[in-house]
């Protein structure tokens, strides 16, 4: 019984949250890695791109709610608003590309210049999002809150520990799987997807083969807009939306992309989960789980929390350091940075 309780507590507080958070990071890191692989720079504006897409989704959600449109089965209205958010975000990134990045691309600017440019874009987006929706917390999740509630689980199983599965967590994982399957199908099976990989692999030869670089760039931005908006909306549904939080997400997202191997989509997914699990494992207070499995006299006195949650961003960096020390191009073969 105690053992079962330990497993349930572990799932409830560690595994499920880490899987959901890992999926969100993976989707974010996929966007970063696509830009790095194809447009060849680290996009520091990615966190704020996510914030922008999410903001449009939230505004659309409120509008849908106000006219009384929703989804059945207790699904959040935000899912219905997602396409609008993606479209808004796509307009934004394509506009930014036309107005800003294209200029530097034509000049064949060095990646480091594009990185600095993207920091500029980041600050502009930062201000724009705050200006439109405000700097505060926004909640936009509606519908059923739980798929399995802690109390329902306890009543059902008779265990002391409850297991809660939030709707947002379930949606996150399912959406992430669908998105990743679609993305890989697109990159590996379609002509456009293959041309994007070819362009990423060897730009000069891609040009010699008649691949149109403008089209590759445009499709990349569209995919990035979709990935960023979906990742941001899922994160917002799961936690809450606050512009500053999204700016901070840049750190674990980059850590995930780099740990997995920049430019490698599979790496981005793996990196997302590595970072998420490390963060949750190290900042979780293990007292409860240990209390169940250790013999009575060994029961821990303290919280057995390795690091306070305030330090969770430090975890990303430590993992990043450790991985790069042993595998400089990341867990999966990425491009040399």
């Amino acid at each position: 019984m105690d053992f079962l309780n330990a497993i349930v507590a572990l799932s409830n507080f560690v595994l499920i949250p880490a899987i959901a958070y890992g999926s969100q990071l993976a989707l974010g890191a996929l966007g970063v890695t696509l830009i790095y692989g194809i447009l060849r720079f680290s996009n520091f504006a990615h966190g704020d791109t996510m914030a922008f897409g999410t903001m449009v989704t939230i505004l659309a959600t409120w509008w849908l709610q106000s006219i009384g449109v929703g989804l059945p089965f207790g699904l959040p209205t935000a899912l219905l608003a997602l396409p609008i958010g993606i479209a808004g975000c796509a307009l934004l990134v394509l506009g930014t590309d036309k107005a800003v990045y294209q200029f530097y691309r034509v000049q064949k600017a060095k990646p480091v210049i594009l990185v600095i440019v993207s920091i500029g874009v980041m600050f502009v987006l930062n201000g724009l999002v705050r200006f439109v929706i405000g700097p505060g917390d926004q909640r936009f999740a509606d519908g059923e809150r739980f798929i399995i509630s802690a109390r329902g689980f306890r009543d059902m199983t008779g265990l002391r520990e409850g297991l809660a599965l939030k709707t947002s967590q379930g949606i996150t994982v399912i959406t992430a799987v669908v998105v990743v399957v679609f993305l890989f199908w697109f990159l590996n099976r379609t002509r456009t997807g293959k041309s994007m990989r070819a362009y990423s692999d060897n730009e000069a030869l891609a040009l010699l083969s008649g691949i149109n670089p403008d089209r590759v760039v445009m499709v990349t931005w569209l995919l990035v807009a979709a990935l960023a908006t979906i990742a941001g909306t899922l994160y917002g549904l799961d936690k809450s939306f606050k512009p500053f939080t999204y700016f901070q997400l840049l750190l674990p997202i980059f850590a995930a992309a780099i740990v997995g191997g920049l430019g490698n989509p599979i790496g981005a997914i793996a990196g997302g989960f590595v970072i998420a699990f490390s963060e949750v494992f190290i900042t979780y207070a293990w007292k409860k789980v240990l209390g169940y499995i250790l013999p009575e006299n060994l029961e821990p006195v303290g919280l057995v929390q390795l690091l306070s949650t305030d330090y969770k961003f430090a975890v990303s960096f430590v993992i990043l350091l450790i991985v790069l020390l042993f595998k400089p191009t990341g867990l999966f073969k990425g491009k040399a940075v």
Partner: protein
Amino acid sequence: MTGGYGRSGPDILHECTIAVEPGEIAVIVGPNGAGKSTAMKAVFGMLHLRQGSVRLKGEDISSLTPQARVAKGMGFVPQTANIFTSLTVEENLEMGAFIRTDDISKTMSQVYELFPILKDKRGQPAGELSGGQRQQVAVGRALMTEPKVLMLDEPTAGVSPIVMDELFDRIIEISRTGLSVLMVEQNARQALEIADKGYVLVQGRNAYSGSGRELLSDPKVRKSFLGG
């Protein structure tokens, strides 16, 4: 052609002339740094010409981009980075045919007929092949547009003598179908043997030219470039 790299770089090519007719093989030889690769790039429009022109079947194509020249029927295998290493062999061929909108399966099976080893390795990333196999992928990729002029920059670089002979045989086969083949080669003797036309390039200038046989028997050419 006269030209160099960038807007203000020094001239690398000096009034260099190269020509090839349908069904012929023309070979460019010369010491390292002579400007052979530069001449190929100039013909393909990857270099700004300061003087001279490039003509395809009499039409002046000097102002066309490399992509437009692909569409006009030219195919180019560069000296380095001439395959997509992370794509499979088959995807490399598909990307070679990117500008085509018709059915490419026939051309692909022709390429597989020409290079049977590629058929066995079609699903493998091209970066995992041996040097000789990569060169075959590179040539195959350029053939996928069904070009009228095929330009090869050192197709036998890093290839063993046996595979080299085989690759030359394939190149002869290709030219028999009516293609013009323009090729840069370090293995000057073997290359000139199969060449209808040969050019010796020294410091960006035509030093000698003539039929392959003429060059091979020219004592000056033998002495300075073929090692006696």
